[in-house]
């Protein structure tokens, strides 16, 4: 029998509007699943039961009066990087363990105006720095496909929650792959929009020239539904782009006949596991059957994307995280002997090991005498990589390749070696450096663990990406797979 958590967001939306079930019923169903399953997964840091039931009640009233917003009554989990007025907002850190946000992030406000029901806040790597959700102060998140494996990161809590059917959608953020890699490792559709497409006001900053907010859902259609209400110009974010938001849902069914797909030569190198590569090639055959044309393209500077990222992102992180000083909000050490001691111990005790590593990396590459050798050079290589992408998009409509070189790895396997952990993001970082939209969709599994196909498009081509992903999901059922024990 089909249960409520077997339905996609689009199907739940139809059911709510046809009054087959109410938002209160739907909300109670998912809250009960969270209560039962979250203790094992550790996917949520905060569950907002009372607010959720009140919001569901309001949504039901609006649905009855015919004045409901496009997403009225649909349950959602927010990554704990987004400020939520009156609700604990930790960013996965001890630094913010007692921080109750005094306002809503723009996307929280927009989605709540659209009628969504927030069920809670998702666990994440501390300040979004990590690829396995093991750097969280609140402990690692488990992958519902295999509890010994990581769910990916940094949006690991959002991914595990949606994969385990604790909610049909979660918000997430992506600085170097933090939406797409967890989507791949948990069998979800993860969309990182173009830089500037979605407002970042109220989203706790990590690396401001790279950060972007997006979604984790079952299908591209669900992502289109949510992005339509999340995207748009926001005067409160100075990097927000003033461009109209297209109707992503209306564009889903365009035929893929004649689509030019670029196969990134460099994406089939760099430690790609054979069984993962095989599934990617099978997915490309599905596109060929739909009338797409495959063209091999090369981005010669792409192999430098990981070292470029690990100069640029830590540099920006060291600046952004200087605001955590133990004075106005956040953690403060006991008995500081003077102001410098207050700063140093509050930060030393409030930040975890990986966050401190990134702050120190960034401090070093920005310091006098090293700025030109590291930071300026990285900014130049960043342009070379971006130009490579621009040349490729003169030839093809989208680029495809794997999202992650391997399926989910064991918890604890890579924590002691930062470089091995950083190389996990080898296929995802390029899109962030160039500000491009990209998504990951499930395309099979290896030993019971999902594998993701990555699709990258030119700036502001979200509608095309969702259309291309939707075309694949019409032909396949990978996005319907539910991990054992969570049916």
């Amino acid at each position, binding site marked *: 029998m089909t249960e409520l958590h077997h339905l996609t967001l689009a199907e739940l939306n139809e059911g709510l509007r046809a009054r087959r079930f109410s938002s209160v019923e739907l909300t109670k169903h998912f809250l009960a699943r969270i209560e039962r399953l979250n203790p094992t997964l550790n996917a949520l840091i905060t569950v907002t039961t009372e607010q959720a039931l009140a919001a569901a009640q309001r949504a039901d009233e609006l649905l009855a009066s015919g004045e409901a917003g496009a997403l009225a009554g649909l349950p959602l989990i927010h990554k704990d990087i987004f400020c939520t007025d009156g609700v604990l907002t930790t960013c996965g850190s001890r630094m913010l363990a007692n921080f109750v946000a005094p306002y809503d992030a723009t996307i929280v406000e927009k989605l709540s105006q659209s009628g969504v029901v927030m069920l809670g806040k998702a666990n994440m790597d501390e300040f979004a720095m990590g690829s396995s959700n093991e750097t969280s102060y609140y402990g690692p998140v488990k992958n519902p496909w295999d509890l010994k494996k990581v769910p990916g990161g940094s949006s690991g809590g959002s991914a595990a929650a949606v994969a385990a059917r604790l909610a049909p959608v979660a918000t997430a953020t992506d600085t170097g792959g933090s939406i797409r890699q967890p989507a791949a490792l948990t069998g979800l559709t993860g969309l990182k929009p173009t830089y500037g497409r979605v407002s970042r006001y109220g989203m706790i900053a990590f690396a401001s020239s790279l950060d972007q907010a997006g979604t984790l859902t079952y299908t591209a259609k669900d992502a289109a539904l949510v992005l339509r209400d999340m995207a748009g110009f926001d005067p409160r974010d100075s990097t927000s782009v003033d461009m109209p938001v297209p109707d992503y849902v209306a564009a889903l069914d365009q035929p893929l006949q004649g689509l030019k797909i670029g196969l990134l030569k460099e994406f089939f190198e760099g430690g790609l596991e054979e069984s993962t590569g095989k599934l990617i090639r099978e997915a490309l055959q599905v596109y060929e059957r739909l009338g797409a044309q495959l063209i091999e393209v090369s981005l010669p500077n792409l192999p430098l994307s990981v070292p470029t990222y690990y100069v640029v992102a830590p540099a920006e992180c060291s600046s952004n995280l200087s605001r955590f000083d133990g004075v106005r909000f956040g953690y403060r050490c006991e008995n500081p002997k003077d102001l410098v001691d207050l700063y140093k111990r509050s930060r030393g005790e409030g930040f975890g090991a990986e966050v*401190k590593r990134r702050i120190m990396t960034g401090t070093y590459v920005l310091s006098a005498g090293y700025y030109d050798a590291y930071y300026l050079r990285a900014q130049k290589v960043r342009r070379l990589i971006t130009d490579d992408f621009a040349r490729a998009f003169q030839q093809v409509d989208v680029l495809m390749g794997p999202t992650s070189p391997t399926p989910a790895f064991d918890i604890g396997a890579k924590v002691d070696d930062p470089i091995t952990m950083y190389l996990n993001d080898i296929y995802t970082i390029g899109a962030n450096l160039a500000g491009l939209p990209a998504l990951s969709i499930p395309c099979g599994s290896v030993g019971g663990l999902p594998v993701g196909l990555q699709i990258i498009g030119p700036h502001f081509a979200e509608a095309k990406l969702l259309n291309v992903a939707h075309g694949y999901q019409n032909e396949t059922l990978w996005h319907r797979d539910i991990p054992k024990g969570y049916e």
Partner: protein
Amino acid sequence: MSLTDHDVKNIAHLARLALTEEQVPVYVDSLSKIFDFVAQLNAADTASVEPMAHPLAGQVQRMRPDEVLDSDQHGKYQRNAPRVEADLYLVPKVIE
């Protein structure tokens, strides 16, 4: 490259991070590896390349008119402060 204990302590001081004695060698090791790893960037020919600061070509950070838009909410904001007295944030004495 290989950093020394002294280098790491200096970087931590600049970043205003207190490290324990046990943490110092851990960061000497991992930061040295990271700087070795990013040294790959030296292989790229960047002689005539303009550094890139913004991912969207031609985009500039917008300015807005200097007008007050928000109401005073310091009471609400100060609820998150570690120590407040008479609407002021308290820190250890800085002037003798």
